[in-house]
């Protein structure tokens, strides 16, 4: 076996949460403070999709693995008004979970009795989760503790600083604050963190399904979401990774959290591949849950233009990085791009540091990479909001750099973007679109022989934390498994033959001399 870590599989999940769009999305929370009687908040409920519409939405089906990129590309853009015929909530990589079941999952993920659900609602959710097939009897039984909770009682908890959980506009649950004074344990923060944990857990469970790995064989978990958990004495203490691993039944795993805004997943994957390559661990899982704050982030533009509010799902993913098995694609931890402190912020400097510098060091041209996976945001969401087609902008920049270097002719620029790029399909959940949505499709395409080499590019907006004005990013190459690294530190079969032949020759010479 070679000396690189390999890509063992990936899972992708969505939780359809339209009521959370209204109550917990940062755009809407801000609007309730600055413009509570404005048109936007009045109009918003009329622009929320049904669960069935969210399931039939092409980019969502692409995310969970029921549509490949060519099939998505074949659907005329925009996609929001062209529902697919697919009505399956489960796909090759994961599922789209409805809001009521998701609240039940949040309660399963809550180990401090902070989630309470109205008794009748909880009973109906319990039935659905029992039929879901991925949760243990013990986990489903957690919902029994709601037997005495009434809507009036829940309303009183909201009055006391709790956050309401709504379904079809009706109060059906609460998240209680975890401390009377500490804002880091407020109901709002606990809701964000439990929602992130729950979507991560859902993805971990699907990763187990997708890869068939024995949960007890996972050694280490790295969470790379964008939330922070801790109390007033250690605001970002962590550890989401181990908390989610506990619920997902990864009993022999420990873990830690890696952060880097949208670049977090790429950093985490590099860490995971390096831990496996070093022999520290055999099976490392990179995982992340979704972000309630980003629900409806571009809602104002969508409502203004008469579109459905397309940011109505929390997203999660998990990726298994494991020891080389001779077949899975290899993570080339020796072909890595870095945006360093000294790189600078011009787009050309950023793309050079992440794309062409590592390829140059490996003696490769940009045309040697079959597919580039930068940030894969769904343009259906971003274009009406004025943010353009983000993946396409990245492919254009890579192609332009390729022309400047002489890797491709100027006339080939457009075809390079088509051949080496992809249509974006990921929800705008910050870290979720950043290169990592391609890990699952990339593995499948390499195992099928469709592509040989891909580059995953993660970019992060560090300046949002007001600690630095710097940008950030890392990238790495994935290759179809051809035994790369075999014999790199050992001796090849040919060399062994040579050594034996030489020894026999010496032995024969010795015998002749005697």
């Amino acid at each position, binding site marked *: 076996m070679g000396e690189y870590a390999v890509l063992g599989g990936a899972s992708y999940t969505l939780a359809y949460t339209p009521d959370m769009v209204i109550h917990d999305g940062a755009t809407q929370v801000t609007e309730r403070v600055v413009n509570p009687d404005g048109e936007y908040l009045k109009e918003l409920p009329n622009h929320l999709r049904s669960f069935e519409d969210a399931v039939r939405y092409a980019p969502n089906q692409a995310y969970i693995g029921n549509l490949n990129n060519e099939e998505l590309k074949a659907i005329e853009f925009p996609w929001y008004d062209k529902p697919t015929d697919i009505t399956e909530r489960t796909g090759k990589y994961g599922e789209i979970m409805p809001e009521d079941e998701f609240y039940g999952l949040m309660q399963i993920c809550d180990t401090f009795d902070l989630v309470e659900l109205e008794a009748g609602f909880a009973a109906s959710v319990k039935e659905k989760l029992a039929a879901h097939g991925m949760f243990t009897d013990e986990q489903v039984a957690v919902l029994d503790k709601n037997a005495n909770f009434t809507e009036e009682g829940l309303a009183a908890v909201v009055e006391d600083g709790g956050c309401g959980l709504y379904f079809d506009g009706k109060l059906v649950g609460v998240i209680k604050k975890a401390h009377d004074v500490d804002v880091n344990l407020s109901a709002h923060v606990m809701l964000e963190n439990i929602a992130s944990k729950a979507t991560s857990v859902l993805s971990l469970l699907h990763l187990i399904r997708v890869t068939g790995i024995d949960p007890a064989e996972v050694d280490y978990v790295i969470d790379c979401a964008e939330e922070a958990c801790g109390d007033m004495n250690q605001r970002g203490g962590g550890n989401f990774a181990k908390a989610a691993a506990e619920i997902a039944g990864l009993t022999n795993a420990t873990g830690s959290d890696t952060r880097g805004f949208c670049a977090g997943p790429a950093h985490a994957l590099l860490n995971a591949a390096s831990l496996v390559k070093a022999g520290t661990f055999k099976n490392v899982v990179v995982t992340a849950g979704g972000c309630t704050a980003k629900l409806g982030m571009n809602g104002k533009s969508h409502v203004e233009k008469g579109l459905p509010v397309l940011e109505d799902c929390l997203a999660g993913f998990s990726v298994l990085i494991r020891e080389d098995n001779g077949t899975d694609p290899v993570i080339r931890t020796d072909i890595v791009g870095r945006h360093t402190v000294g790189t600078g*912020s011009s787009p050309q400097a950023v793309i050079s540091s992440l794309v062409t510098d590592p390829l140059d060091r490996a003696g490769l041209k940009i045309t040697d990479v079959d597919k580039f996976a930068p*940030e894969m945001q769904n343009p259906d969401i971003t274009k009406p909001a004025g*943010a353009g087609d983000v993946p396409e902008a990245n492919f254009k920049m890579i192609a332009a750099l390729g022309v400047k270097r002489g890797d491709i002719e100027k006339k080939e620029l457009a075809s390079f973007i088509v051949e080496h790029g992809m249509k974006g399909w990921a929800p705008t959940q910050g870290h979720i679109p950043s290169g990592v949505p391609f890990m699952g499709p990339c593995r499948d395409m390499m195992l099928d022989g469709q592509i040989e080499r891909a580059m995953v590019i993660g970019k992060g907006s560090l*300046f949002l934390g007001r600690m630095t004005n710097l940008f950030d990013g890392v990238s790495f190459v994935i290759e179809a498994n051809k035994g790369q690294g075999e014999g790199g530190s050992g001796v090849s079969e040919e060399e062994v033959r040579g050594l034996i032949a030489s020894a026999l020759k010496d032995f024969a010479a010795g015998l002749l001399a005697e």
Partner: protein
Amino acid sequence: MAILNGKKVIVIGDRDGIPGPAIAECAKSAGADVVFFSTECFV
């Protein structure tokens, strides 16, 4: 570029377009006094 010469300038960059510091450098080279710059994320 004379339009920026001697003018006070506020720069808002886009992380997926041209970031603030890059625009600020261009504006400075055209004689502008950049009083504030930042980069925002719209995704």
